[in-house]
C-alpha cells in the first residue's frame, strides 16, 4: 500500500519552549486508512496534526505527505488536506456568512488571484447540505451555536474535496443527535472517497466501532499504535490515564 503520511523521527518544539511538544514520532498512514488519536490533555495530539499539515515547523525529523515534504511544499500539501481545528469558535458579532466560510475551504485549490467559480460554490452548498446546514447558509457565523459552527468547519473541510482529513475533536460541541449522524457521515466519506483520515477524539466507544487502528499519545510520544481493543487495554492499565482523562 502507498504511504500517504509518513513521519520519521519527528520532534516539534513550540517557539520559546525547550521541551518538544511531540518527541521522536515515527508514523505511517496508508491510503484510505482511518486512525483515531487519543490521549490526555497536552499529550501532543493537536501538535501531531499541525505538524502533519505543516502549520508548525519541525525541530527534527521529516514529514512527507502525499509524497511531498511539508517543510518545502507545505502549501501544496495543505490544499489537499481538510482540516478541522480544535474548539474553533468565532465572536458573536463575526461578520461572515456560513456559506462564505465553507467556500473558503476551496480557496487554496482555486489558486492565487483567481476567484471561486460556480463549481466551487456548488461544492460548498453540497457540503452544507450533507451536514444539514443548507438553511443556515446566509446566516452570520456569529449567530450560530457552537455545534453549528463546528458543522460549518466540517463542511469547509469536506467542500475542499481533500485527499486527507485531519479532524481535531470535531464532534465535541455537537448535540447528541449530530454526534450519532456526523461520525457516520465522515465514515461514509472516508469509504466512498478513499480518504486517509485522522481523528483526535476522547470518545473511545466511537473508535471501537469505527476503526481498526488507534494511536495513544502521552507526553508527546506515541505510546500505542494498535487495534482499538489493544489500545483500550493499554490505556486502562496505564497510570498515565488513571485520572480519567479518557472516558
Amino acid at each position, binding site marked *: 500500500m502507498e504511504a500517504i503520511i509518513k513521519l520519521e523521527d519527528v520532534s516539534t518544539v513550540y517557539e520559546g519552549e525547550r521541551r518538544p511538544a511531540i518527541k521522536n514520532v515515527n508514523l505511517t498512514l496508508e491510503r484510505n486508512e482511518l486512525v483515531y488519536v487519543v490521549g490526555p490533555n497536552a499529550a501532543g495530539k493537536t501538535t501531531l496534526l499541525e505538524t502533519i*499539515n505543516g502549520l508548525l515547523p519541525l525541530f527534527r525529523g521529516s514529514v512527507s505527505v502525499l509524497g511531498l515534504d511539508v517543510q518545502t511544499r507545505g502549501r*501544496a500539501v495543505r*490544499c489537499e488536506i481538510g*482540516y478541522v*481545528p480544535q474548539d474553533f469558535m468565532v465572536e458573536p458579532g463575526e461578520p461572515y456568512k456560513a456559506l*462564505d466560510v465553507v467556500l473558503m475551504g476551496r*480557496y487554496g485549490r482555486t489558486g*492565487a488571484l483567481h476567484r*471561486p467559480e460556480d463549481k466551487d460554490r456548488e461544492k460548498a452548498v453540497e457540503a452544507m447540505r450533507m451536514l444539514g446546514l443548507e438553511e443556515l447558509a446566509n446566516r452570520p457565523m456569529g449567530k450560530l451555536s457552537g455545534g453549528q459552527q463546528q458543522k460549518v468547519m466540517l463542511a469547509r473541510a469536506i467542500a475542499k474535496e481533500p485527499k486527507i482529513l485531519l479532524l481535531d475533536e470535531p464532534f465535541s460541541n455537537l448535540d447528541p443527535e449530530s454526534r450519532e449522524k456526523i461520525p457516520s457521515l465522515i465514515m461514509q466519506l472516508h469509504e466512498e472517497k478513499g480518504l486517509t483520515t485522522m481523528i483526535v477524539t476522547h470518545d473511545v466507544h466511537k473508535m471501537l466501532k469505527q476503526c481498526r487502528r488507534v494511536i495513544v499519545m502521552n507526553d508527546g510520544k506515541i505510546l500505542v499504535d494498535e487495534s482499538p481493543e489493544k489500545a483500550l487495554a493499554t490505556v486502562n492499565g496505564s497510570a498515565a490515564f488513571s485520572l480519567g482523562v479518557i472516558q
Partner: protein
Amino acid sequence: MIGLEFTIMQRALLACVLAGFLTGLMGVFVVRMRLSAIGYSMSHGAFAGAALGIATSTNPLVTGVLFASATAFLIGPVADRARLHPDAITSIVFPLNMALAFVFLTLTPEIGLTSQVANVLWGSIISMTNSDIVYLVTLCAATLAIIHFTWKELFAIMFNRKLAEADGIPTKPFIYLIIFLSGVVVTISLKLVGGLLIYALLFNPASSALQFLEDMRKIVIASPLIGVATNLVGLAASLFLDLPVGSCIVLVSTIVFAVAVLLSPKRRRKEVQ
C-alpha cells in the same frame, strides 16, 4: 476660514473625500487583521519621515513614504525573521518614530514651529496642492485594483489567519502587502489631519461599520463611505467653528463611533439574550 478661495475649497473637499475613502477602506483590513498597533507605528513612521523631509528641505511626502516603508519592513518581514512578537516590535518602533520626529523637527533651529512643521503635526487641508490630489487619486485607483485582485485571500485572512494558512493560502505576503499599503495611504493622507491624529482615520470608520453590519462585503463598502462622510462633516465643522480641520475630523469620527456603539444592533441583541 469661510472666505477661502474656491480652488482651495475644491481641493480641500476632494482631499477629504479621497483620503476618507482610502483610510476607511484600509482600516477594515488593518482592524480585522488585528494590525492596529502596527497602524500606530506606521502613522508615526510617516510622521517622522515627513519631519525629516522638512528638516532637510526635501519633499516631506517622499521622506514620509520612505520612512513608512522602512517601518513596514521593520515590523513586517524583519520582525518575522527575528521572531519578535508584534507587540514587542511595535512597542519599540512607535516611540522610536516619535523620538526621531521630534529630533528632526528641532534639528534645524531656524525651522522652529513654522507652518510647515505645524502642518505635519496636526495637518492643514488648505495646504493641499494639485499634486497631492493627483497622488490621492492614483493611490485610490491602485488600492482598489490591488484589493480587487487579492480579495479572496484578504477575505479569508480577515476571517482567520491560521485557517487560511491551513487551506493553502500563503498569508504572510498578503499581510505585508496590507502593512505597506497602509503605510503609503497614511503618508499620503498625512496633510489632512497630521501625524498625531492620522491613525484615527484608519480605525474609527472601520470600527464604526463593524458595530452595525454583519456582512464583511458590506463593511468594506460602508467603512470608506463613513470615512468620506466624517471627513466632510469635520471639514464643515472646522470652517464654521474656525477650528483645526484634523481635530474636527477626528472628533466627528469619534462621535460617529460612540453613536455606533450605543445604537449597535449587535449589542442590543446581546442584552436581550
